[in-house]
């Protein structure tokens, strides 16, 4: 799979990005600048939301409004948003009296938005000033484009986890999205920054309040309804470290794997088969290759297993060399492709060694835990916010 991502990502780069020398600061001139509603769902973002809205107000795009949705926060978020709305004509605030979860917050934002085009970003993210123009380029050039996902960049890089995630975001997220664009469907748009065509959302039934990862689910809903989702690496969005989200992501993957299984098997849905297969393969890897191998090896120590089931040793052989090489190669390719959007990311290569040694194991464990959790999850149960640790941020800590 890693090699498919490497080959696909490199091909995407070669075909779509290599010749474009404009840089993300210089988006192309658009034939038209339709009005855009930027929706910012936030819960307890008192420390971040002022920066988020300030960055949004600096958008280099002529016609936009900002709808901040305060989802039942119990900190200063509501007061801060009201102050912003009072001082800035472009800003409106929608308070939800009780915490309803991100999906309902965005549904309400979409309902109140006056525009056909929405850009949804998280309440702790800083959108690059040209991002909206880059996103709109796709909506104006393709009638079947239902969503455009941007390029999230990690801001908090002091800690070990932050440094690893710089590599992970360019490698796993950037490279897989590029590769998946080659086969025409992507696993998920990024929940941090994505533009939507409201018609596509409306046809698909907007975000589902009961799905644990709204972004994965809406991506599948739109694509199952034959809408295209594109990736725009120039639409940069600076985010704080998304920590402790791994189990949620794994569970979101397992949810769509099960939810869309039945609807998938018609010729018209064939483009989703590869995404589904890719997801299934990662679960298979987690369960069979990792867990069963370990269990069989341990079992072989106490009971005599038949010859084909016997795992002699966990010591790495030539396969270990290949795995090790593959992982480092994948990171090298993705950091090289990514360097045009953020120079000097090569120095994070030192920290990526954690990825194969520890992160892969964590990912395997989360995948193994997520599947049964998804199966036994109460059907229709509402998914609400879980605020993660976002890494060291001196500006936020200095605030009262």
């Amino acid at each position: 799979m890693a090699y498919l991502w490497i080959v696909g990502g490199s091909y995407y780069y070669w075909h779509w990005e290599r010749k474009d020398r404009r840089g993300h600061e210089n988006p192309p001139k658009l034939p038209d600048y339709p009005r855009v509603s930027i929706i910012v769902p936030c819960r307890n973002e008192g420390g971040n939301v002022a920066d988020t809205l300030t960055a949004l107000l600096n958008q280099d795009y002529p016609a936009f409004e900002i709808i901040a949705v305060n989802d039942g926060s119990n900190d200063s978020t509501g007061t801060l948003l009201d102050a912003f709305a009072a001082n800035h004509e472009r800003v409106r605030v929608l308070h939800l009296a009780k915490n309803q979860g991100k999906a309902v917050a965005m549904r309400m934002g979409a309902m109140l938005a006056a525009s056909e085009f929405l850009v949804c970003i998280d309440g702790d993210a800083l959108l690059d000033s040209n991002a909206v123009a880059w996103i709109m380029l796709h909506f104006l050039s393709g009638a079947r484009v239902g969503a455009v996902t941007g390029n999230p960049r990690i801001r908090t890089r002091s800690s070990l986890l932050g440094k690893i995630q710089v590599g992970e975001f360019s490698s796993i997220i950037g490279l897989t999205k590029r590769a998946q664009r080659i086969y025409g469907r992507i696993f998920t748009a990024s929940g941090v920054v994505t533009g939507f065509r409201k018609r596509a959302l409306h046809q698909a039934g907007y975000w589902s309040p009961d799905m644990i990862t709204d972004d994965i689910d809406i991506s599948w809903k739109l694509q199952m309804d034959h809408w295209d989702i594109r990736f725009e690496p120039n639409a940069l969005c600076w985010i704080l470290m998304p920590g402790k989200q791994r189990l949620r992501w794994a569970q979101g993957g397992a949810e769509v794997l099960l939810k869309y299984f039945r609807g998938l098997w018609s010729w018209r849905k064939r483009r989703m088969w590869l995404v589904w297969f890719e997801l299934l393969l990662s679960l298979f890897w987690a369960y069979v290759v990792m867990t069963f191998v370990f269990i069989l090896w341990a079992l072989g120590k106490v009971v005599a297993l038949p010859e084909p089931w016997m795992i002699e040793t966990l010591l790495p052989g030539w396969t270990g060399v290949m795995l090790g090489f593959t992982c480092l190669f994948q990171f090298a390719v993705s950091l090289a492709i990514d360097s045009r959007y953020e120079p000097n990311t090569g120095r994070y290569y030192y920290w990526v060694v954690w990825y194969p040694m520890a992160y892969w194991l964590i990912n395997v464990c989360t995948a193994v835990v997520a599947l049964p959790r998804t199966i036994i999850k109460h059907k229709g149960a509402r998914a609400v916010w879980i605020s993660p640790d976002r890494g060291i941020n001196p500006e936020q800590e200095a605030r009262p």
Partner: protein
Amino acid sequence: MTPTLVIERPDLQAWRQKYGYAALTFVFWGLYLYLWQPLLSLVLWFLGLGLAYQEMLHLGGFRGLLDVLVFYVGIICAMSAVFLGWGWINYLRFRGVDRRQAAPAVSPQELTEFFSVAPENLIQWRACKSLTLHHDPHGDVVAAEPGPGASYPSLVQCDRNPAPNKRVANR
């Protein structure tokens, strides 16, 4: 890049954490190289050429590498060819062709039907700089409370739209 956006402040970390993680990462590189043990062994064997010949060629130790390499390279080439071929065929077939007509924008009426709210409510809500919505346990709007400066009463129970809810959430 906007350099000020990146927060890299190792000085805010405890020295134990800062150097501890760097050292631990170094150890991990060591462990990682352990994965490469067979390759390192091969290199070391080559340094003592006679032994390398004995182990790798005469006893066939290199065949393991050859087998794995042939297997992996074969699969990677086959997958890549199919993948890129598929991408290329699709590109040639569909480039510049968009069979789908531009879809009309979603009208306020469609929105009010979908979200089961009265059209006049939506008009009022959109005019508010600040608005509070109350929901029932299913996430449907039941009441609205405009913020300061709004021109209508403070808490309004919603007139639910009589039209059937055209929810298609589970498609």
